[in-house]
């Protein structure tokens, strides 16, 4: 019975893992869009043109990435995104260098995540 349970557990884990990979592929455009918002905010910060609305969008994009990336095995991405969210939500906001570096790292994580071969 135990071995049957273990077998069922392994099958469930494999099925979940496969389904998660499909969901990652499906939601990759949304992940990329969130990173793009952070990249644009970093550029605006560097140019001194970051608006309140843009800062709010960056806070929201970072918040969403923080809540999602870890579920897709990108725990470090959640940590980075959460830190960036707190910086944008805080009084001074991030420095342009920090914002750019963190957005760059998030981009690399999202683009570098292994996805299964098509088909």
């Amino acid at each position: 019975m135990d071995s049957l349970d273990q077998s069922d557990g392994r099958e469930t884990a494999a099925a979940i893992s496969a389904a998660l990979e499909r969901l990652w592929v499906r939601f990759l455009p949304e992940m990329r869009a969130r990173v793009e918002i952070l990249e644009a905010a970093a550029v605006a910060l560097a140019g001194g043109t970051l608006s309140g609305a843009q800062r709010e969008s960056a806070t929201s994009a970072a918040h969403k990435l923080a809540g999602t990336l870890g579920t897709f095995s990108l725990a470090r991405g959640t940590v980075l995104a959460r830190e960036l969210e707190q910086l944008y939500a805080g009084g001074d906001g991030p420095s342009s260098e920090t914002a750019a570096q963190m957005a760059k790292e998030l981009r690399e994580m999202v683009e570098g995540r292994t996805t299964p071969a098509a088909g």
Partner: protein
Amino acid sequence: MTRKILIIDDEDDIREVAALSLESVAGWEVITAGSGAEGLARAAEQLPDAILLDVMMPGMDGPTTFRELRKNPLTAKIPVLLLTAKVQSTDQRRFADLGVEAVLFKPFDPMTLSTQIETALGWS
């Protein structure tokens, strides 16, 4: 035991992963709503065993949705678990003060989400 869970979250990816998790791992029936307003309607129609409610949503946010659920006699007794990516202690205290059954955190592990819910609600 088969349970019926309502997930209210404006983010499609979170809704889908949570639904996948609860259906596949626990075998529960899952219904979803993409906004607080839709969630209120679905809760009253479907009378789920529990509600997993996102905190930050455009329009009606999670705390407001929770208060509206409690005002309706049909949904007032349904256990509500907040699901949030906010981890700061001030946020956690604020959420706990609302009177929800539990606060769960994003990101969640799809393999253990149902266990977290069972533990929080004393279903296990």
